């Protein structure tokens, strides 16, 4: 192939900010509205295209719909696939900013992604004397 060494043409200028999944999103820390860590971006969910189906020329590009967390981290490392119902989603509409970290525009406390944290807090840590003591 000759094209490997010749400089490739620039892609047509896109109409908005560019985000590369791997570079800008995956494995980044997710903070909530108040800067409290919620989780990391363990994977991403895209609304299409349908697998193994010919894509009609001119069909609209799929859209990134949600950040994923929970057991999907385990399957991403070791292989396999959790059932879709077991995925913990943070919908993209709740994302406020993408920088070094991904910031949400909502509070993290009530999210599905925080249930383990809530459970450990309510069942164990808050029950130890001083568990709600403010260190400052």
């Amino acid at each position, binding site marked *: 192939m000759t094209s490997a060494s010749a400089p490739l043409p*620039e892609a047509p200028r896109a109409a*908005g900010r*560019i985000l590369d999944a791997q570079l800008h999103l995956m494995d980044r820390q997710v903070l909530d509205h108040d800067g409290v860590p919620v989780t990391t971006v363990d*994977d991403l969910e*895209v609304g299409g*295209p349908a697998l193994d189906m*010919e894509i009609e020329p001119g069909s609209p*590009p799929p859209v*990134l719909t949600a950040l994923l967390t929970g057991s999907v981290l385990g399957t991403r490392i070791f292989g396999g696939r959790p059932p879709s119902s077991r995925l913990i989603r943070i919908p993209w509409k709740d994302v406020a900013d993408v920088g070094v970290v991904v910031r949400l525009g909502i509070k993290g406390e009530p999210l599905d992604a925080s249930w383990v944290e809530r459970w450990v807090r309510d069942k164990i840590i808050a029950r130890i004397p001083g568990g709600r003591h403010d260190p400052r």
Partner: protein
Amino acid sequence: MILGDLLGTPVFDDDGGRLGRVADVRFVLAGTPHQLMAEPRLLGLIVGPHSAASFLGYERNGLTRPHLIARFLQWRHRGSFLVLWEDIALVGAHSVRLRPGFTRYSAALDNDEKA
């Protein structure tokens, strides 16, 4: 579909020739505007002929140091290219097929982001 599945998937041209693997998936914030951020629309795939491993951040033009690491990773990812959504014919569970006469674009990213 889950994006992690797409990363590392082999990419073929229309004749079945292997071009490499999906190294990254590029989005552009140009979809339906929400209250906070616009929806990221799939712009295309970054295909790496030699390695689908992470670029460790060195795909951006601005990142050239430490020099030896930058050179090494650029060498590992030599020949990587961007192929646009319009040129993708089929996304399968184990392969991606491009349309005949697809265009390779430069995969480099401008380092224009804010911290």
